[in-house]
């Protein structure tokens, strides 16, 4: 095994741990809605939400970095350039995350000065981490970019997937610089902030996971390189063709000119198309291989990724992306419903699929299956589905009573939050969150023990 792949395993382990931390703080955040006086003045909602969404970004990023470190040396047939630096940085990265988490847990916030921005809490959603830590992430990403590009240069070989990856890393790192400035003007702040958030999840990350899934399809389904690369180009064309100006769906209400209502509505309405393309391709590949695979869980999680991405991002996004609807759904639990479903479908499922593939390869097992992974798969997806349905219900109640009827005042907000539909939605979300958390436990159990429980060499069963 290459050193780069050993490093990947470290990244995977860290990702799984932070996935657990995220789930824990998700459950805690959900509880405030049911027991509002919980931990009052000790650890308030905002800190719990910060822990939840920041660890979300961290574990997905770690999972995807791991995936690239996993596939890269195989792609080029050589050890990754500068791997020692990446190995050191992994530990620096983990240590930095832990320090930031401790500051969030115990210091929580500072006073209104630049010191707080540098060392405590920047208070900008998803990028709350203080600036010193943001610099750390930039360094990790730069070394990662150097590893990828440097290795390609050293082998004097470029594949289509690698071209896409290398070019994608440039904007991916560039928009992250958005984590530093401290704008006075909220409109300007949010304008650039969305370049980071939207351009990550609906642009550069989508391309990155596209590259990873291309490698996965070659690995799990044995699809030929020419096909995955052609398909990757098509996906990139459609995703970026719609997604770059689709950014406009966040520029409806932040002070930006009215033309964004048309541009954002139009281009983001096209965004589901490439996501559907992935579903079609997944079905095609599954069909060509008669659903025959040596890695059952990996295969199922890839399928879940394709469907989840389309439904969570595509359908849930499409529902509320026209400005006339978004005027009311904007900034409610409806948004949360879409956020969960989309992140889950597009990225979490993909990362989990990679975990299973790496698991199989490291232990040299010919055929990976069993019973536990099915429980993990079922509980996680069922839990997530239940959560997003509860959130959708709550969000619709908020849009209906709080925004459209009540006019978004404090009074309207409190009354819609006491509405039985909203309250039931919050309970459902929490209950299904527990189901989800159980699924997480089974997933970890399976990832740790699956290969021990599987016989070393067994022929895969014939297709059904």
């Amino acid at each position, binding site marked *: 095994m290459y050193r780069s792949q050993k490093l990947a395993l470290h990244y995977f382990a860290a990702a799984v741990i932070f996935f657990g931390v995220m789930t824990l703080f998700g459950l805690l955040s959900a509880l405030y809605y049911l027991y509002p006086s919980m931990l009052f003045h000790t650890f308030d909602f905002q800190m719990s939400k910060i822990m939840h969404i920041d660890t979300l970004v961290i574990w997905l990023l770690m999972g995807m970095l791991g995936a690239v470190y996993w596939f890269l040396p195989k792609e080029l047939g050589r050890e990754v350039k500068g791997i020692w630096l990446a190995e050191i940085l992994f530990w620096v990265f983990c240590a930095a995350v832990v320090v930031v988490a401790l500051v969030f847990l115990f210091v929580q916030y500072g006073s209104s000065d630049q010191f707080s*921005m540098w060392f405590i*809490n920047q208070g900008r959603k998803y990028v709350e981490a203080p600036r010193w830590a943001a610099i750390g992430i930039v360094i990790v990403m730069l070394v990662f970019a150097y590893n990828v590009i440097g290795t390609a240069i050293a082998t004097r070989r470029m594949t289509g997937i690698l071209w896409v990856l290398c070019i994608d890393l440039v904007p991916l790192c560039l928009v992250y610089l958005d984590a530093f400035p401290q704008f006075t003007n909220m409109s300007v*702040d949010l304008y650039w902030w969305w370049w980071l958030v939207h351009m990550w999840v609906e642009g550069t990350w989508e391309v990155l996971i596209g590259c990873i899934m291309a490698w996965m399809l070659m690995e799990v389904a044995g699809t030929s390189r020419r096909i995955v690369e052609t398909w990757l180009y098509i996906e990139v064309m459609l995703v970026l063709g719609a997604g770059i100006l689709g950014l406009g769906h966040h520029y409806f209400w932040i002070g*930006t*000119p009215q033309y964004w209502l048309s541009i954002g509505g139009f281009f983001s309405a096209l965004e589901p198309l490439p996501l559907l393309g992935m579903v079609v391709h997944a079905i095609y590949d599954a069909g060509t291989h008669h659903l025959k695979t040596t890695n059952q869980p990996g295969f199922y999680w890839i399928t879940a990724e394709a469907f989840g991405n389309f439904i969570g991002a595509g359908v849930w996004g499409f529902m509320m992306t026209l400005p006339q609807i978004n005027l009311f759904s904007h900034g409610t639990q409806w948004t949360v419903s879409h956020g969960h479903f989309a992140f889950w479908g597009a990225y979490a499922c993909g990362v989990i699929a990679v975990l299973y593939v790496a698991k199989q390869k490291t232990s040299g097992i010919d055929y990976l299956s069993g019973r536990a992974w099915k429980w993990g798969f079922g509980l996680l997806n069922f839990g997530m589905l239940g959560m997003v349905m509860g959130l959708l219900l709550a969000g619709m109640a908020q849009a209906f009573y709080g925004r459209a009827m009540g006019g978004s005042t404090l009074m309207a907000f409190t009354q*819609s939050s006491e509405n039985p539909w909203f309250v039931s939605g919050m309970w459902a979300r929490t209950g299904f969150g527990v189901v989800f958390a159980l699924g997480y436990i089974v997933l970890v159990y399976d990832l740790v023990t699956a290969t021990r429980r599987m016989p070393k060499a067994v022929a895969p069963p014939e297709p059904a």
Partner: protein
Amino acid sequence: MSIQEPGFWRAGAISTTAVMIVVLIFLSIDSIQVISAGGANVPRYDVINQQIGYRYDWTRRMDVPVIGGPEPLFGTVYSETGAQALIAKGKLVIQSRACMDCHTFFGNGAYYGPDLTKSWLDPAWSQIWMPATGAKTREDAMVMFLMNPDRYPTWTRQMPNLQLTREEAQAAVAYLKWMASVDTNGFPANFGMKQP
């Protein structure tokens, strides 16, 4: 080149992306002008010396902010630089306390607390908090609330005391007043005009 060739789609991906990026850059140059303080949609910071309203505009078919006559904040008329400094402080207060991880600004953030876009215009100040705090003006009630939110709760979900000093609370109030003057294409709709 045939459509089965990867090269065809590679060219397509590059050119489509390039065109979109160029369009986005031009739109961004225009948008940043419109949303800079003093731009078409976002008033200068010294707008806090004036009255701010929010009314339905029949030609645009949406709610728009209305900037009225003088209405000094905390009895002070701020110079342009004074207002700028105060608002800058307000933004630092908002970031340092992570208000955005409980509240939304222009609908962005977290959903545990109410949206603050038009909070300055919220009838709750005169109907609930002015009586509760005994303050004579809306801005004084806001300052008292922000300094001790745990003392004046209106319902079960409470805002914690975030240790704001008086200066910090005043800066945050100025920020909220300025924010209410931003033209947000009608978000939130019907603010304060309907009773639930």
